């Protein structure tokens, strides 16, 4: 069937039917990390998740991974970005999938792995006999830009070839990459449930508002993102924008999730619980077009499984089973962090960031949309 237009039918009723009540729905907010690293690492924005690939042989364990971007002259940037941790569960996973935005100028990538508690250093994965450890950008599907993909199904390592990610930033006033790790427990007897397990958290119960009070003195320059020397921000709609068209959606909209690469200023790795289970999903942050007099608006796009561009593609066996049809897909989640100066008392003003629905500045959406061909149910 040719899909000419998607209409949105939400999971609202399904979620309501599956409701468990709000009796134990007192949530607990956890801030698990707030850290800073030296800037300029490459490749930036990598997402990694343990999966079952069918033919994978990666042993269970807690792994750290780092990705280095290279051109003919060697490594780009100041070094690999801080390692990302992936837990491979026994009898559940056998591989780790990665996705990251192509690094400008990179012709290849080297992926490093360390098994926590076993190997002392990040060691390069062997891509081919030799040992060859350089993954050509073309083999990762990103020679012309876009997003790179790699699957570690238990590759051997070339132990002498190691990498050290960029160090911690400790100087006030310096340029630095900043990490903020937030986790929400949604209730139940245990107020500290890990993100990747359901535990005793009631479901559905969804995040509504999220305000980040940044430290006084943190300085962000919205004019730093440039294209050919001219400041550039990602528009909300239209060509090369966050939402693209306002009348067609998902795979039908060629302008959706097409913020200019020059406006990319961060990444997000999220754990999301839906009716289908708990999933790790990738996302990116762009310097977005501000509204009115607000100084800064960051656009956040999260790409759930079965949305366009996900490694779990719409129409795949997994998504067809989950959505009840090969012509259905999940709509991406488009959020905005509105950054505004707020008086904190004592003459101190500092930026607050409020997370909202990018389309209308309403609270964070309670549900994901399922997109189906117009007229289909």
């Amino acid at each position: 069937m040719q899909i000419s237009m998607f209409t949105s039918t939400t999971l609202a009723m399904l979620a309501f039917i599956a409701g468990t009540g709000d009796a134990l729905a007192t949530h607990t907010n956890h801030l698990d990390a707030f850290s800073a690293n030296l800037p300029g690492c490459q490749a930036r924005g990598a997402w990694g998740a343990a999966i079952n690939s069918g033919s994978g042989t990666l042993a269970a364990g807690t792994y750290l991974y780092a990705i280095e971007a290279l051109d003919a002259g060697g490594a780009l940037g100041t070094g690999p970005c801080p390692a990302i941790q992936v837990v491979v569960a026994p009898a559940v996973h056998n591989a780790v999938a990665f996705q990251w935005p192509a690094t400008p100028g990179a012709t290849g990538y080297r992926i490093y792995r360390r098994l926590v508690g076993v190997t002392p250093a990040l060691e390069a994965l062997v891509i081919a006999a030799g040992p060859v450890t350089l993954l050509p950008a073309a083999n990762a599907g990103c020679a012309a830009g876009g997003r790179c993909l790699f699957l570690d199904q238990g590759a051997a390592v070339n132990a002498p070839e190691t990498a050290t990610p960029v160090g911690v930033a400790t100087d006030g006033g310096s340029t630095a990459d900043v990490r903020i790790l937030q986790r929400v427990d949604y209730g139940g007897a245990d107020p500290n449930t890990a993100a990747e397990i359901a535990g005793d958290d009631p479901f559905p119960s969804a995040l509504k508002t999220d305000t980040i009070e940044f430290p006084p003195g943190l300085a962000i320059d919205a004019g730093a993102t440039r294209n050919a020397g001219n400041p550039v921000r990602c528009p909300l709609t239209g060509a090369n924008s966050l939402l693209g068209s306002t009348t067609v959606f998902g795979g039908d909209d060629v302008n959706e999730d097409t913020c200019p690469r020059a406006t990319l200023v961060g990444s997000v790795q999220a754990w999301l619980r839906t009716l289908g289970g708990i999933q790790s999903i990738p996302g990116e942050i762009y310097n977005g077009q501000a509204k009115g007099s607000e100084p800064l608006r960051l656009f956040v796009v999260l790409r759930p499984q079965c949305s366009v561009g996900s490694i779990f593609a719409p129409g795949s066996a997994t998504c067809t089973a989950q959505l009840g049809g090969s012509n259905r897909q999940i709509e991406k989640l488009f959020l905005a962090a509105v950054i505004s100066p707020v008086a904190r008392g004592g003459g101190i003003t500092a930026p607050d960031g409020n997370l909202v629905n990018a389309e209308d500045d309403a609270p964070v959406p309670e549900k994901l949309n399922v997109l189906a061909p117009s007229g289909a149910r």
Partner: protein
Amino acid sequence: MQIRQLDTRVFGSADQGTATTADDLPFQRLPQGCTAALATQVTTYADPAASIASLTLNLAGACVLFSNGFE
């Protein structure tokens, strides 16, 4: 849909689309001082009471003057 965790990384510099990072422009600078405190407030559709969490980033490199007797 339940967002259970957000692991957010904001880049310190904006790359200019070139292979080198030498032309990157600073996008984000840390506060001056020895520490930087960050707080988050979260509500859910089921629970309108804000739950607050905070952490402090130690910026030891900024404390040289203090350790030299200027505190």
